[in-house]
Structures are given as C-alpha cells and as structure tokens.
C-alpha cells in the first residue's frame, strides 16, 4: 500500500458533509461568496451522515402560536435533569422556525393539513415541537445547494488530525481513502461537523454495523477534537433507545404519534400518544417487565397505510424488506422493542464538544455543529441551526482574527509526523487480528464494563482493558488495504471515546438520567455536589487526562 502526499489551502475547512456540514458550507458561501470553502466527507456528499436517506420530522421547531421558546427550554431542562446550558439551546429554539422556512424554500417537503397548518406531533411526555417532514431527498437537495454555492467537496476523505498552533486551529490532515492520498490542508478556520459515536456499544445482534445511529461515525469528531486539546463533555451520558429489536431502526415516535401503544409482557399499556418518554421505557425494560411490544391492531387501515408510507419512504426505507422477510404485518402482529446499543451523541443525548451559542470551542478558529457538539437533544434541527451559526462565526473570525504567525516549517513538520504515523499503521500487514474481530473485542468491553449499572470497580476494570487494547493495537491489528487503514483509524477513535466515557462515568459519583448513568455504588441523584458538567481534556498524551468541572450556565449569554 503506497500513500501519496498533497497540499492545499482553503479559508474554511468543514469536516463532515452531513446536514450540519452541508448547511455550514451553504451559509458561509452565502455570507461571503469570495471565501473558499472545502468539505472533507468520509462518504459521498449525496448520501452521507446520519440522514442518508432523508428524515420524517424536524424534532425541535417552535411554531409560532403553538409553542414557545421558554416552554421548550423548561421541558429540555427536565429531560436533561437540569444539566444543560441555556444559551445554545435558546438559540436553537429561537432560530428553529426560520430554519424550517429556509428548508421549505429549498424544496424540502413539510406536509400541511386542510387548514394549511404543519403536521405537529408530541414525541415526549409533553410539548409539541416535532414537525412532520416527508423528505427522502433531503441530502440530494443539500448537495444541489452545495453545487450552486461552489463549495469544494472532497468525497471519501477522512480527517486524521487537526493542526493547532498556540490555541488556534491552522489546518487539518485528510486521508483520501480511494486514492491513498494524505492531504495537508491549511485553513484559516475549521468547522467540525463529523457526527457522533454511533459505533460505541455493541448491538445485541453482535453485528458491528447494526447500530441505531449512523455507523460511519465512530466518534471521529470527538476523538479528533479531544486529541487537539478541545474540551469534551457529557461522555458519561451513555444513551440507549428502545427501537425495533434486531434492526435498531427508529419507528417508535412515528407509530406512537399515530395512535399505536406499547405493551409489556402482561399486556399492560406502558406508552402511548400522551406518554411517550423513550427513557422511561428503557427503565421499564431494565426492571424486567419486558419484552415490550408495539401494538397497532386497533388502528384503522388508513392509519396503518400512513405509518407504512412514512416508514418505508424516508430515513430507513429498507425496513420494508425486513418486515417482508419476517412475514409480519403491522395490523396483525406485535413488534418487539429492544434497547439499542449505547451511543454517545450531542444530537440525541448530551455528549460532545463543548460549544457556546456561537458554536465556538476552546480552540480559536475551531467551531463545531451537529451531533459532534454538545447542544443537548438538538436533533436534526440543531445540525441546521448550528451549521448556520458555525458558518457565521467562522466568517466573522476570518475577517477579524488576522493571520496567525506560524513558525517556518511548522506545518511541514506536523505533516511529516502524521505521514510517518499513518505509514506506520499501513506497515502492519503481517499482524493476525482483523479489524472486525478487534472492534468486536473493544465494543464488548464497552458493553460489559462501561454501561449502566455502573460502579467504580467495573469502570476501572473497563478503563484498564481499553488502555490495554490501545497498547495491543499496533501489535495485533492487521492492515492490508486502504479500507482497513480507515478501519484502524476508526478503532482508535472508538478507543478514545471509550476512555473518555469511562473517566467521565467514574468521575460522576451519583446516578442521573435514569438508566443512562446509574451507579450502583452511588444510587442517588446528588444535586448538591454533581449539578455540574464534567469536561475531559487531553494533556501531554493519552495517559494524561484532565477532568474539569463547569457550572451549568442558567440564563443570559456568555
């Protein structure tokens, strides 16, 4: 395997071309058309990120006359057990309706009723913030806007390192996994938008890629940021959802909002349209009242048809084939639910890069948006709103920050260093453990030691095993192709996330968020001592991790 080298320059580099990254590029080019903007996307821009095949709803929209920003913030605080900074979530809520309007003007389809009202759904115990969005071509629409905006897109290019000099980001190194080309990209500003840690816990099927969240995201963003000195928070929020057993495809909100019920093993209704908290369901599963089933036999033919239309057209259309294979029909059979594998995600949970309401990180010139950033439960709306915010901040930063004086040959040295590291990985052709087997071991350790119920003994054991697996990686993991090189790099990202999660979980000596962070040695929620964020930052190397506490920012703006 030979690697070639290349260099390039851009004003703004966006890492990840999912919804947040695409939106950031479009917004940056709209604000400053002469600014050069480049996206490095690990997949292909037309079908990449968590919403590859479109989406059926925007989960957070404050529709005027229906709900209010303060109502949203109150409910969010309750869902986060008060561990949420108000300012970023306020921006999310305030700009949510405008985002809907912008998307609509681009041709994204939001169905309306006879009176011209958007389809609003309640997807939790209270609050109607979820607007139906029947759009299988969301990514195609964004890709078209990107073409029109003249953004440069490098497909199949994954970033392996962020370059920082004196607390300011100065570029990144990308790996073109098709061509085997390492690219040194100098940039005045970088927007990190490469998603969550979807490949974290191991799904119950044992299938590494059968995850709820997009498995192309192995925590790349968390890890890249972490290694360059960025603060990462909420890594103890190891989130699981109740989804279709064995398939881990979402359908709960879609069916509950249309009248379906969830029943336990005694046939008692445990969730319906008015009681839809997914986290409570997970707790009920943990209590042993499972298996749980979705019941739809009482629904009208028209409702079943509506549900099938949504499920089989957007987000995960392939599930139609799954039900056909299982010979199951929604109007006849019960659908079993099961908790998914654990994930770390800023969009669904509250893990991620610490940002403020301007999408700024603690590194100057580095911004973050979407699932990689900790704006709790921001969902797809957050990707769009903070894609915009990050672009606005990056454009402003470039205008005002001036050029950074970088010592001569600094970039060259960094590039040489990273090139050597990557070539070192490609030399592991004679090792004998393949990446699938290695990843299985790592994620099995995550499942067995790092998830609820957690305690100090198990977390310490897990952390030790994770560190050991990192040490063994160069000795055992076999790398024979560019594809396997990509997997080897992803394995390091997963290990970083596991290490951060173990440390954060060990640090939080209390239980919070129900089944998400349940410490058997500290079973109670302790607001007196623990109503604060736990931020993780790297020191000299992976053996030198700094843990800091940050108080919850209640009101106003930083």
């Amino acid at each position, binding site marked *: 395997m030979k690697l070639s080298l290349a260099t390039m320059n851009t004003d703004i580099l966006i890492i990840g071309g999912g919804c947040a990254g695409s939106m950031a590029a479009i917004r940056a080019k709209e604000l400053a058309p002469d600014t050069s903007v480049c996206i490095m996307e690990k997949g292909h821009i037309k*079908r990449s990120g968590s919403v*590859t*095949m479109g989406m059926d709803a925007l989960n957070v929209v404050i529709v005027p006359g229906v709900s209010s920003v303060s109502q949203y913030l109150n409910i969010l605080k309750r869902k986060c057990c008060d561990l949420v900074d108000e300012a970023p979530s306020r921006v999310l809520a305030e700009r949510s309706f405008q985002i809907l309007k912008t998307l609509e003007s681009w041709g994204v389809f939001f169905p309306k009723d006879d009176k011209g009202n958007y389809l609003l759904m309640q997807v939790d115990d209270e609050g109607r913030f979820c607007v139906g969005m029947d759009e299988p071509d969301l990514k195609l629409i964004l890709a078209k806007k990107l073409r029109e905006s003249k953004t440069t897109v490098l497909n199949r290019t994954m970033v392996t390192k962020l370059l920082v000099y004196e607390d300011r980001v100065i570029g990144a190194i990308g790996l073109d*996994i098709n061509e085997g080309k390492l690219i040194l990209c100098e940039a005045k500003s970088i927007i990190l938008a490469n998603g969550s840690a979807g490949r974290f816990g191991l799904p119950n099927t044992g299938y590494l*890629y059968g995850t709820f969240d997009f*498995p192309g995201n192995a925590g790349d963003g968390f890890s890249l940021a972490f290694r360059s000195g960025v603060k990462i928070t909420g890594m103890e929020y190891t989130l699981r959802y109740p989804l279709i057993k064995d398939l881990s495809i979402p359908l709960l909100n879609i069916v509950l909002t249309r009248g379906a019920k969830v029943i336990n093993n005694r046939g008692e209704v445990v969730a319906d349209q008015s009681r839809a908290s997914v986290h409570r369901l997970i707790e009920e599963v943990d209590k042993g009242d499972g298996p749980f089933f979705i019941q739809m036999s009482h629904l009208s033919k028209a409702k079943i048809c509506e549900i099938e239309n949504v499920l089989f057209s957007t987000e*995960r259309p*392939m599930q139609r084939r799954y039900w056909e294979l299982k010979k199951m029909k929604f109007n006849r059979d019960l659908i079993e639910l099961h908790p998914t594998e654990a994930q770390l995600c800023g969009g669904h949970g509250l893990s991620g890069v610490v940002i403020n309401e301007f999408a700024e990180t603690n590194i100057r010139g580095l911004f973050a948006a979407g699932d990689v950033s900790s704006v709790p439960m921001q969902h797809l709306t957050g990707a769009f709103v903070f894609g915009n915010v990050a672009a606005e901040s990056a454009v402003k930063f470039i205008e005002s920050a001036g050029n950074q004086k970088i010592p001569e040959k600094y970039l060259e040295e960094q590039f040489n260093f990273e090139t050597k590291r990557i070539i070192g990985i490609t030399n592991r052709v004679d090792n004998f453990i393949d990446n699938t087997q290695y990843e299985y071991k790592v994620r099995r350790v995550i499942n067995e030691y790092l998830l609820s119920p957690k305690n100090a003994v198990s977390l310490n054991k897990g952390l030790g095993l994770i560190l050991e697996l990192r040490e063994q990686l160069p000795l055992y993991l076999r790398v024979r192709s560019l*594809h396997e090189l990509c997997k080897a790099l992803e394995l390091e990202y997963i290990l970083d996330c596991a290490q951060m999660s173990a440390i954060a979980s060990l640090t939080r000596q209390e239980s919070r968020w129900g089944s998400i962070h349940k410490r058997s040695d500290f079973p109670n929620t302790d607001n007196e001592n623990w109503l604060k964020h736990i931020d993780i930052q790297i020191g000299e190397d992976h053996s030198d991790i700094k843990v800091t506490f940050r108080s919850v920012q209640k009101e106003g703006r930083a």
Partner: protein
Amino acid sequence: MNTFSIAVSDECIGCGLCVDLCPLDCLRMGKDEKPFMNYSECWYCGACEIECPVSCLKVYFPFLVY
C-alpha cells in the same frame, strides 16, 4: 453467505454509481463489471438500491431476522 449482500440483475449497466455513493464504502466493482458487497459493513440504508439508474440492485439481509 455474508449477513448482508446485494443481488444484481442482468440489467446492470456497470455505471458504478452504487459503489461511489455507498456511505460505508462497502461495495466494489467485480471483474464482470457488476458491483458486489466486498465488506460486510452494510447499514442497509438502501442508497445503492434507490439511486440505481436502472433499478437492477436489491439489498438483502437474510440473517438479520434472527
């Protein structure tokens, strides 16, 4: 048999669009100029099937139902 695979019919024109678009880089072109699943790392998103210009491709996952 792999857990995941694709079935490609004779209508395939060998354009390679499915290989380009696969979000997880699972597919490759075979010597017969037809795509095949080289890596069993499929998320069954269906991008390959839905984007195929001649609708010749089908994703299937026989073993996932257990």
